[in-house]
């Protein structure tokens, strides 16, 4: 038998150790429920699953199509976690780097209680940008997807196409520095499996240089062309682990801040305000782009947010549970070069 090295073997190793950890957690009754990934109903997809029995552990999978950020399923879907008096459901959650970051940030915002959570850390090697593959394949129906060496093979009725894994992963994954969930000093026991210690992320945002060098008009044209197809289905909001408001500003009807049409100015206003809300909170999981039915790349905006917050307030979300996020805090010594001054 030929042993093929690459993501295929890497993934199955991760998968096996994840199942083992999950099994022992359920056996020792350390957790009541495990949130993880399972196969989706169609190829090129995955679905979240909640497991309560030991024998169901085999349903858990890990591959490069697990794009959902599982932290979303904690808030507000499990209210017990928000209010400990209602009960203390212990949850194990399969965490790639960005899920871990989301969990830490949610606990900073007092949305979840990390003491009730066990992070099953897994080292993520990048999520495939399925929209790009679907686009390349075109109208042909994809029936099967598997990893072969370092390639993704997509099979259909009369065709077979190979995609280089390195190239076809999400743009955010290409620059990702947090592959497995960060460990917190004060809550070291919550992280089991692969976790890493991170104090700060060094990032020079090279991927933004090209866009930022454009003139204002060129930027407007690019943003307009990119967002024009947006149908305002709000899938990006539904997938985002940080969007947990009971009433989103777009659903509010007293007052109606922004109209609900797909007129370009209103689309832009929606994305502007969405970006404002995520400043200093976005954990760069790329779930918003992955779920977009129109294949809009929202990563550019989230990257910019990350850059603004890093440069202005020296803050990276979801790394440190003690540091206050910039929008929850204030300081006398912020830079104010943008303020209007007399000549």
């Amino acid at each position, binding site marked *: 038998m030929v042993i093929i090295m690459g993501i295929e073997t890497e993934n199955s190793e991760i998968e096996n150790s994840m199942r083992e950890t999950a099994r022992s957690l359920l056996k020792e009754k350390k957790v009541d429920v495990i949130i993880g990934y399972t196969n989706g109903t169609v190829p090129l997809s995955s679905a979240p699953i909640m497991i309560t029995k030991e024998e169901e552990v085999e349903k858990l999978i890990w591959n490069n199509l697990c794009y959902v950020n599982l932290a979303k399923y904690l808030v507000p879907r499990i209210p017990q976690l928000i209010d400990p008096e209602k009960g203390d459901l212990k949850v194990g959650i399969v965490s790639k780097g960005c899920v871990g970051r989301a969990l830490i940030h949610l606990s900073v915002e007092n949305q979840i209680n990390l003491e009730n959570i066990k992070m099953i850390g897994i080292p993520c090697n990048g999520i495939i940008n399925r929209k790009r593959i679907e686009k390349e394949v075109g109208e042909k129906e994809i029936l099967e997807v598997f990893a072969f060496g370092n390639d993704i093979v997509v099979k259909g009725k009369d065709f077979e196409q190979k995609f280089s894994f390195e190239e076809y992963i999400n743009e955010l994954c290409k620059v990702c520095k947090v592959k497995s969930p960060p460990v917190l000093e004060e809550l070291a026991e919550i992280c089991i499996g692969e976790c890493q210690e991170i104090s700060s992320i060094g990032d020079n945002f090279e991927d933004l240089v090209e866009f*930022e060098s454009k003139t*204002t*008009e*060129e*930027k*407007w*044209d*690019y*943003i*307009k062309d990119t967002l024009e197809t947006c149908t305002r289905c709000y899938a990006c909001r539904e997938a985002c682990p940080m969007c947990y408001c009971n009433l989103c*500003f777009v659903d509010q009807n007293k007052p109606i*801040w*922004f109209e609900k049409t797909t*007129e*370009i*100015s*209103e689309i*832009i*206003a929606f*994305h*502007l*305000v969405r*970006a*404002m809300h995520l*400043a200093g909170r976005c954990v760069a999981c790329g779930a918003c782009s992955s779920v977009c039915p129109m294949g809009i790349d929202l990563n550019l*905006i989230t990257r*910019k*947010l990350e850059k*603004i*917050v890093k440069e*202005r*307030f020296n803050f990276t979300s979801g790394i440190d549970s003690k540091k206050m996020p*910039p*929008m929850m805090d*204030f*300081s*006398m010594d*912020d*830079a*104010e070069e*943008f*303020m*209007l*001054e*007399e*000549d």
Partner: protein
Amino acid sequence: MTTQTKQEESLNDEWEPKILAFLCNWCSYAGADLAGVSRIQYPPTIRVVRVPCSGRVSPYFIIKSLMDGWDGVVVSGCHPGDCHYLTGNLVARRRFAILKELLEFFGIEPGRVNFMWASAAEGERFANLIKKATKIVKKLGPNKKFEKKW
């Protein structure tokens, strides 16, 4: 834009922008008042909305004003450290910093949205800053990017 304003525009050779100004009750509004009673001349381009504090100004207000067709927005509050509510303007400053950079990133001229500090005693400074803001917005021309196509 109503037909009346269009007519007015054609009558004037030079186009004058319309700027919505959010002034904080405790400093800038009083500053604007001082500019008025001191008879300091400044362009009649601003329409004032009095807010309790610059921290009250949500990014919604600013984006909504642009969408409603205002050519520019000015937000003015107390100098840092002078806020009536102690930290309202510090919170606002962070919001403005991010909003301004985001607008620039989206390709909307950042000059349309201006932030400034003016205290109750700075009538002259207020007038000067409004002059400057008017000049910036005038140079950018009418706000066309948020114009409704249908």
